[in-house]
């Protein structure tokens, strides 16, 4: 489908706004490969923010350490949100902490992804029914891409969640008209 300016416009037609010439059909191969390249490099170096609130944080640490090594996926932990592109919300979020979660999310540069790890981050977890100060799911505060259930989820489940996020990233279109 060509999106180039109409060739040979008849008189009386509304002129298209002037701008750079858009690529023709032969450029889609180039754009498609550029997408593939960009997405592949993004998914292979997902640097995650060390944001461990509670028990899931220990499973996160253990997943990043000796036996289940997250580093082989290119995922290293960063302490500051400015250098991270993945926020693994691991642990219970309380109302006192909620504002800081939003602030940390806003401080991350685009493109950014959020994985909600564990029951507490998904829906409030075991504290859903009777606790007055637990936010019932981190998706009430920030948008979430992948949910990992478990209390706490095994490191294998966390790795599975990260791989699902990688599939999600590969499907994304960055260039071209459908971006």
């Amino acid at each position, binding site marked *: 489908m060509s999106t180039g300016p109409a060739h040979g416009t008849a008189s009386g037609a509304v002129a298209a706004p002037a701008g750079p010439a858009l690529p023709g059909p032969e450029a889609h191969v180039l754009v498609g490969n550029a997408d593939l390249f960009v997405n592949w490099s993004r998914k292979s170096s997902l640097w995650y923010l060390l944001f461990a609130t509670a028990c899931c944080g220990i499973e996160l640490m253990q997943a990043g350490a000796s036996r289940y090594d997250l580093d082989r996926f290119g995922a290293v932990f960063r302490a500051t949100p400015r250098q991270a592109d993945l926020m693994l919300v691991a642990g219970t979020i309380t*109302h*006192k902490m*909620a*504002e800081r979660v939003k602030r940390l999310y806003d401080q991350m540069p685009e493109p950014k992804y959020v994985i909600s790890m564990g029951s507490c981050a998904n829906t409030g977890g075991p504290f859903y029914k009777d606790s*007055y*100060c637990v*936010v*019932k799911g981190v998706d*009430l*505060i920030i948008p979430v891409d992948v949910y990992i259930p478990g209390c706490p989820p095994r490191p294998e489940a966390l790795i599975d969640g990260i791989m699902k996020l990688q599939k999600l990233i590969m499907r994304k279109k960055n260039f071209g008209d459908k971006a």
Partner: protein
Amino acid sequence: MKEPGNPVEAQSIFEILKGKFGDAAVDLQAEGFSPAFVVVAPASVKEIARFLRDDPALSFDSLMCLSGVDYKDRFAVAYHLYSMANRHAIGMKAFLPREAPSLPTVDDVWPAANFQEREAFDLFGIVFEGSKDLRRILLPEDWEGHPLRKEYKYPEFYHGIKV
């Protein structure tokens, strides 16, 4: 096993306190209470605490636990004391009325009390007079109400997020 010093029975501690402070030592709750509780008048909590710590036979140098309790008709502050030297434990309790509960602080007797008093203030609303720092500790600064009271109603929203 360490050799215990000279542990003193709860009944004797109560007798000693009654002898020294008279009516301030109100009652002894022993049956069904482990450790036994010496019920004291709220206003004299600080003097009795200082005596319990400094008296050589008792020497309660360690405050194990300080907690607020909401019995439905009144509040109470329960202190659990322990003596490292003599290896005995006692409880001290002060009953407070439901409206405006307050009593003197013990954080100059046992500095371990400070955070626990702040917690009792935060969750029950019990005011500790003379405390060097009495602010909310566990809940956000602008939280309304004292959650561990029995009649507490959970709020609907907090800063726009559903509670």
